[in-house]
């Protein structure tokens, strides 16, 4: 059973590599029960989206 701390590490790594089947299952079980880590996962996705958008953020001023 993963702790929240371990879960944050796996969630970060899921942005960088394909997790193993076991890791994915452990994650899913944990996320199903843990609101904090589910939010953490969404926040990681948000950061990636923001970084992708970062260079285009200057465009907003043109509109």
């Amino acid at each position, binding site marked *: 059973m993963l702790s*929240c701390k371990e879960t944050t590490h796996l969630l970060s790594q899921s*942005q960088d590599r394909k997790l193993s089947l076991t890791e994915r299952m452990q994650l899913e079980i944990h996320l199903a029960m843990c609101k904090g880590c589910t939010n953490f996962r969404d926040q990681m996705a948000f950061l990636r989206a923001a970084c992708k958008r970062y260079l285009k953020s200057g465009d907003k001023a043109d509109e």
Partner: protein
Amino acid sequence: MTAVENLLVDDVFLKEIRRDMIKFAHLQLRDEAQAEDVVQEALAAAFTNSKGFAGRSALKTWVFAILKNKIVDLIRQQCRTTNVSALSTDEENLDQAFETLFKSNAHWSPAVRPGNWGDPEESLRESRFWEVFDACLKHLPENTARVFMMREFLEFETTEVCKELSITTSNCNVILHRARNGLRLCLEQNWFAAGEQPC
């Protein structure tokens, strides 16, 4: 003169794009003079190869692609002299701040559990958000920021980041996790919670 050459001598457009480029280069290189130099080089390269780009946004994307490549080259030259795995006080503080989020059983402490950030698009549309985002990026310790930005902005694969900086995969994972959590906490405190809780 082609349309793009016209754009590149258009004062307002040039000033604006130059400002954005320097901001980006400075965040990545953390060195004013180097940032200015690399932006100048990228603009010069853009100017000499400017055929075939009709619109502003296509040009901007392209100029930034040149800038990215130039920064990547610079990093490749420099990395051998930087030891990114060395921990500064700032990095230690960030790790400590992370540890305080958890109870002794390594589960979230209820008061500081990550919150729901709602619809991301709403924030990404607000210019104030980007000011906070910038400030949070600048707030990351130098080496942590370097690894994070290589991964997220220069879009290196993690294996390349490790190779370029001569660090192990697990070290790389630790640094990226530190960066992401640092950035997340900074945004949570300064953007997402700012409207809800009195300081």
